[in-house]
């Protein structure tokens, strides 16, 4: 266990180990997203009531799942960084935040586009929409706080503390918003009680969700690797790597 953590905390080990994974991750993500898109947008049957408008599901649901999973991952990375001071965890948290924010935005945007044909409006103050909007603001706050500090270490720790505060607050926000909405009006649109989907519809959805997750993993690893090179640019192994590349002596 401890050796495992130490290994992952070592920049050099991380860089050299994850390098060979990346092409596979990118390829798998691309294949799954492509296959899921074609399957979901062209092959899967249209919805009985919403017809082709329901196909936006294949973008909306994966991005919404990722938006929340990203926050969980970021909170985990922040906790690891605060407790063990492992810098790679901080780099991962920094890399996840903008991706999570963009996924939240994608979920909100695709939801708004979906709302036009089905609900007849872009926006309702539905519980889920509201809590996603607040999630987006929290992402913005974390990103802004990290960049507001002159010293990188202070920014990292501040962002980590705020992430942990946010992750404790998120369930409270979510449930309070649900209650707030049901207090004032009966739920006009129930997103939770979706009609049981046939396999021809949820299988492509599953493929898309997996594709999004692989894309997320590949992107975060790639960004952490870049950040690693930037932060460790003075260390010997990075110099050796760069000079080796420049001299054309790649293995």
């Amino acid at each position, binding site marked *: 266990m401890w050796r495992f953590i130490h290994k992952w905390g070592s920049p050099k080990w991380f860089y050299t180990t994850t390098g060979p994974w990346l092409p596979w991750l990118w390829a798998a993500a691309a294949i799954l997203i492509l296959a899921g898109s074609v399957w979901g947008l062209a092959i899967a049957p249209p919805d009985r009531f919403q017809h082709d408008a329901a196909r936006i599901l294949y973008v909306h649901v994966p991005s919404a799942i990722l938006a929340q999973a990203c926050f969980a991952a970021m909170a985990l990375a922040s906790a690891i960084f605060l407790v063990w001071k492992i810098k790679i965890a901080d780099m991962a948290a920094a890399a996840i935040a903008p991706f999570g924010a963009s996924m939240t935005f994608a979920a909100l945007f695709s939801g708004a586009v979906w709302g036009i044909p089905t609900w007849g409006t872009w926006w309702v103050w539905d519980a889920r929409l509201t809590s996603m909007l607040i999630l987006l603001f929290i992402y913005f706050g974390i990103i802004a706080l990290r960049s507001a500090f002159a010293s990188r*270490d202070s920014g990292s720790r501040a962002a980590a503390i705020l992430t942990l505060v946010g992750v404790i607050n998120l369930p409270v926000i979510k449930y309070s918003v649900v209650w707030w909405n049901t*207090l004032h009006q009966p739920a006009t649109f129930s997103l939770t009680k979706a009609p049981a989907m046939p396999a021809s519809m949820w299988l492509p959805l599953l493929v898309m969700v997996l594709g999004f997750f692989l894309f997320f993993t590949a992107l975060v690893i790639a960004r952490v690797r870049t950040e690693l090179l930037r932060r460790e640019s003075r260390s010997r192994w990075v110099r050796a790597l760069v000079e080796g590349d420049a001299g054309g002596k790649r293995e």
Partner: protein
Amino acid sequence: MSSPLESSRVSLRRAFAAVLKRELSLRFRRRQDLAGPMLFFALTVTLFPLGLGPDPAVLGALAPGLLWVAALLAVLLSLDGLFRADYDDGTLEQLLLSAQPVALLVLAKVIAHWAVTGLVLSLFAPLFGAMLALPAQHWWALAATLALGSATLSLIGAIGAALTVGLKRGGVLLSLLVLPLYTPVLIFGAGAAQLALEGVAIGPQLALLGAMLAAALGLAPWATAAALRLSVAG
């Protein structure tokens, strides 16, 4: 100079009381700062009838929500001063260096902050409720929800204030950090005040506000202390 051993002889209770006393006397000696949130609250409440029209029926129906939002913004406005002066003159460093747990000293500061902003606002809120045509029998609900909720607001806001105290221009960032975290308190506080207007018993809502306050009491001072440490170090 006293050794850490000597200073630790000051009991926790005395240290807590000393910080509380210092905060309160500092705040009461600078009356213009004390009046700041109240004036902001009063001015905002004055703006609502100008924007919405003077119809008492409309204003009365919206009053709980409007007063809650105005009070929330007034608390937000006062947050920047929570640690600013202590950060500038070095008192904060002494607090962090003291042998007492920082979280408890922070709690004393937050209690003082609540006493001069949230508590005062909730005491004056019925007055402004009357100006917004809120029926008199619902004043107590408004005051009770504001008093309970604003304590949570002060506790959560202290985290944001501690994170931004080392920054030169922290004002906008502070609202970006704190406002999303304020939403549950606003929902239940304003919701309870609104329900009272509709004639529903608000016991459960008050209990939930109390539960949020309890959770914030337990967790927020530690997060604030950690944030203060990094702000002072950075």
